[in-house]
């Protein structure tokens, strides 16, 4: 998979030099999920498992439509159903297609210690190169959306690839192709933002005053965006209101790294030069005393 787009890697985990990125003409891409058009049919889930050739284990029903009940290493997208009352006595049934948001500033990539296990392409797709994965689970700590899942079978992390293999040869992601209501669209980020805003405007006219585009700035924007009926309260659908890469992760993988490295090297250098300057600590023999 990675070989198809190996000339347009703009970021690579645990790598301090530039990655191959001579091919920069790829436009920024995005997937837009319009929840107001979603009927919860789960065709996208089926298309995802079909194209990626994944078969999750048959689980058990937890009393609601969610099936499976959460993302798994083999279910990269899952429809989540929410019965909420945004206004008292006004029941609404919200359906959200959960999966990787493909952040422009991906926390998983920042946290990952394995060189090349997570890459970001110039078109914005964040991809796990699973053969480089070491199974440490740092991506789970880095992700603000709780998306990566690590397989019990092979200890590798998995998530939605935004069908990087299809997109690399000019096709749309499998979920987009299959959606029967056109709730999922795919195109340049610019087009998707303007289409999303247009849809939000239409929803506002129909009485959803707080409809809007979910493209959170805290992670640099995302390459999977939602049109939400209640964009002022994304937490109604288990979406964080202002997601950012946790400050703990930024500290750990940011300033702490060079500082600690410098501290350890300084300790060794201090010892060496101290010995050269002061000499050993021992009983002075008579001749040495000056």
């Amino acid at each position, binding site marked *: 998979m990675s070989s198809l787009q190996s000339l347009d890697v703009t970021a690579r985990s*645990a*790598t*301090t030099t530039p990655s191959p990125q001579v091919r920069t003409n790829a436009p920024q891409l995005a997937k837009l999920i319009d929840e107001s058009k979603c009927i919860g049919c789960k065709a996208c889930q089926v298309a995802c498992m079909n194209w990626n050739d994944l078969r999750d284990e048959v689980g058990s029903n937890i009393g609601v439509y969610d099936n499976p009940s959460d993302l798994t290493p083999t279910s990269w997208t899952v429809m989540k159903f929410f019965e909420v009352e945004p206004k008292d006595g006004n029941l609404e049934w919200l359906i959200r297609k959960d999966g990787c948001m493909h952040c422009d500033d991906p926390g998983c990539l920042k946290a990952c*210690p*394995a*060189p090349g296990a997570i890459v970001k392409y110039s078109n914005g797709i964040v991809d796990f190169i699973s053969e*480089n994965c*070491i*199974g*440490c*689970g*740092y991506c*789970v*700590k880095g992700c603000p959306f*709780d998306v990566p899942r*690590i397989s*019990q079978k092979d*200890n590798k992390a998995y998530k939605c690839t935004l069908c990087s293999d299809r997109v690399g040869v000019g096709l749309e992601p499998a979920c987009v192709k299959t959606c029967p209501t056109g709730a999922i669209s795919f195109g340049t980020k610019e087009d998707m933002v303007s289409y999303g805003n247009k849809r939000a405007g239409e929803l506002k006219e129909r009485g959803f005053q707080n409809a809007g585009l979910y493209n959170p700035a805290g992670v640099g924007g995302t390459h999977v965006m939602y049109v939400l009926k209640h964009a002022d309260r994304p937490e109604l659908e288990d979406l964080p209101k202002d997601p950012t890469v*946790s400050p*703990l*992760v930024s*500290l*750990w993988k940011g300033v*702490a*790294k060079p500082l*600690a*490295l410098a*501290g*350890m090297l300084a*300790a*060794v250098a201090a*010892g060496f030069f*101290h*010995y050269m300057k*002061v*000499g*050993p*600590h*021992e*009983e002075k023999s008579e001749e040495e005393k000056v």
Partner: protein
Amino acid sequence: MKVIRRYSDGERMTHWVVAITFVLAGLSGLAFFHPSMFFFSYLFGGGPWTKILHPFIGLVMFFAFILMAVHHWRDNLMQPGDAEWRAKARDLLMGKHPQMPEAGKFNAGQKMLFWVLVICMAVLLATGVLLWRPWIAPFVPIVLLRVAVLLHAVAAVLLIVSVIGHIYMAIWTKGSIRAMTRGTVPEGWAKMHHPAWYRQMTQGKS
């Protein structure tokens, strides 16, 4: 040359188990800390193997350290005179040979090192257990994992810097290393560096 026994066979073997596992846990951990040190993972058979081995090595280190702490904690309790020793340590390091308060089996610097190691080891174990995949981490809230991973790194770096200091002090103070390799030290060494301990060891003997 008359010598005095400083460490028993058991104390020395425990120390070296801690030392060896410290180096292994340190190198495997540093591989994940900074990309410039990822190459340490090749010593352990690659990334996945390094990830698998690191927690087990850490556990051995921790349990050996507990044994060591049980041997030595009493001798590391701070005593009157230790504050003065610390105040004069700077001159000692500068090679000025100040008149130091008489140190017991361990001097105030060694005692501080001991307690820093105790704290670091405790933090490393507590956070390391939480982070252990695939057995424990999947059942720990992600917020807690983020705190754990940061504390684990801070404690590890503090431990490494402290041990660099510890190793240097052993090299700097001539005659110290044989205490841990052979278990005995010359009387002159004991008289100079640990006079109170020397008197205690030689009382009633001639």
